């Protein structure tokens, strides 16, 4: 693997996702690679919090591990960590380390209003951004729908390791809900980034700013350098050919009489 490869902005080859012997990275290994100058990230249950050194920056790290399902407690704990950074560390960048199998699928969490807890976390991230904190997220193993919307997808720069799994739902479940045969969906997912799981497809559609490999610390430094507080995803999706309609439709609405 090249030593100092900057993250792929989409005009390079998109085949990095297919590393045949890819194995997921544990959070400790990823953290050591992101912060060679040192970090004090600790695990408490499935929650990760701490600080890391990246060049001239001290960054706040908030994340999850163990392919955890995000329930009300975890969403609240992440929100508390974000609020703490806003209160006590003005302008300190926040890095989310994402590994979640989605929102917790329990009657009890639904009854307590899990959507409200997820939204609260998203609002805290937005408040951080608007208070001058750069927000970076890295999907280092897995990201699914609800658990991903509330933090990783709220970032200025959302990146993933090439072997990370990103999806809304597996194809068998999708086939059940949509009543389209799994065979047909499998076939379509070969040609369309719209259906198929995988970091590569999210990259092409602008959902990811880049895929990080090689020197992760350099990738992070670059992201901190280029973090843009405005939502770039529609433009990236158009440039990369994976999402051709979103940007033009928004422009047409803005230009309507």
């Amino acid at each position, binding site marked *: 693997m090249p030593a100092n490869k900057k993250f792929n902005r989409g005009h390079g080859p998109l085949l990095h996702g297919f590393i045949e012997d890819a194995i997921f990275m544990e959070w400790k290994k990823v953290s050591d690679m992101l912060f060679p100058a040192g970090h004090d990230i600790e695990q408490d249950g499935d929650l990760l919090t701490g600080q890391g050194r990246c060049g001239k920056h001290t960054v706040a790290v908030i994340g999850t591990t163990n392919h955890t399902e995000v329930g*009300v*407690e975890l969403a*609240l704990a992440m929100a508390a960590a974000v*609020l703490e950074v806003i*209160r006590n560390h003005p302008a300190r960048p926040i890095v989310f380390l994402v590994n979640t199998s989605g*929102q917790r*699928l*329990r*009657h*009890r969490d*639904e*009854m*307590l*209003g*899990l*959507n*409200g*807890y*997820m939204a*609260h976390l*998203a*609002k805290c991230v937005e*408040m951080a951004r*608007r208070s001058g904190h750069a927000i970076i997220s890295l999907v280092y193993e897995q990201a699914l*729908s*609800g658990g*991903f*919307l*509330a933090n990783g*997808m*709220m970032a200025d720069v959302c990146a993933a390791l090439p072997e990370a799994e990103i*999806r*809304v*739902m597996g194809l068998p*479940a*999708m086939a059940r809900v*949509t009543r*389209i045969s799994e065979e047909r969906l499998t076939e*379509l997912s070969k040609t*369309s980034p*719209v*259906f*198929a799981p995988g970091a590569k*497809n*999210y990259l092409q*559609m602008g*959902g990811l700013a880049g895929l990080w490999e090689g020197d992760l610390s350099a990738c992070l430094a670059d992201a901190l350098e280029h973090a843009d507080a405005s*939502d770039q*995803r*529609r433009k990236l999706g158009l440039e990369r050919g994976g999402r*051709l*309609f*979103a940007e033009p*439709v*928004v*422009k*047409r*609405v*803005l230009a309507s*009489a």
Partner: protein
Amino acid sequence: MNHSYYESSARARIAGLLDAGSFDEWLPAAERLTSPHLATLEQPAAFDDGVVIGRGSIAGKQIFIAAQEGGFMGGAVGEVHGAKIVGMLERAVRDRPAAALLLVESGGVRLQEANAGLIAVSEVMRAILAVRAAGVPVIVAIGGQYGCFGGMGIASRCATTIIISEEGRLGLSGPEVIETVRGVEEYDSRDRALVWRTVGGKHRYLLGECDTIVADSMEAFRQAITASIAKGDDWSLAALEREHRLLADRVQRFGDCQDGRDIWRKLGWPDPDAIAMLDNDEFMAAAQGHRAK
């Protein structure tokens, strides 16, 4: 004439809520803007992709509006559908109407275009928060057959305020999804009373997930929207910290409850089963001092 919000289409809701003749639609059906992904799948398309957007007025105040049509794919969000909502919201940031109004009826991400839909929902969330940061309140109304679930359940709670009817439902994972994954013992999606005690309008109001509950009529929704416009917004760190304490208290107080009834009992309702029988005015009166807010 039918004044039920629940039974109305997206277009009928707009007609029933806005000042007569005030609505101008952006990208109307005549422009035949359909989902390219549904076409690939040989699935039927809609010329508005299941959402109507535009501007109008309510009680003389200029508002921008998006109304999801539950009758088309359960109001699910695809690439074009989501971009229409985002366009309306970005226009609200630019033009500063008195409010941006979202008539939400949606199961969440449209699975036929799953990845595009998920990114679109995320873009809607960020756009809602951009509108609020610009000082324009975002008002969500929930009261249709398909409820408000999936990513739209999160997006709706990013808004300034939510107005719900007793018939409205608000959550993240729908009961069918949880039942499929965890089994019927975890959540019986066919037990309508259980579903209502979990995600129904009255429960959400008592829990503090919604600010206003109204009867199922256009007029009641219209009055509540008018009142919400007048209240404005409070997008601030202090407001988020208040919300944080409220959500922390909720886990503390109700985290071990097994059923909506247990929560209502803890809120001081001696006979939780009577709640379902109260009409909206009786319920509102009885809820004073017996909701978590």
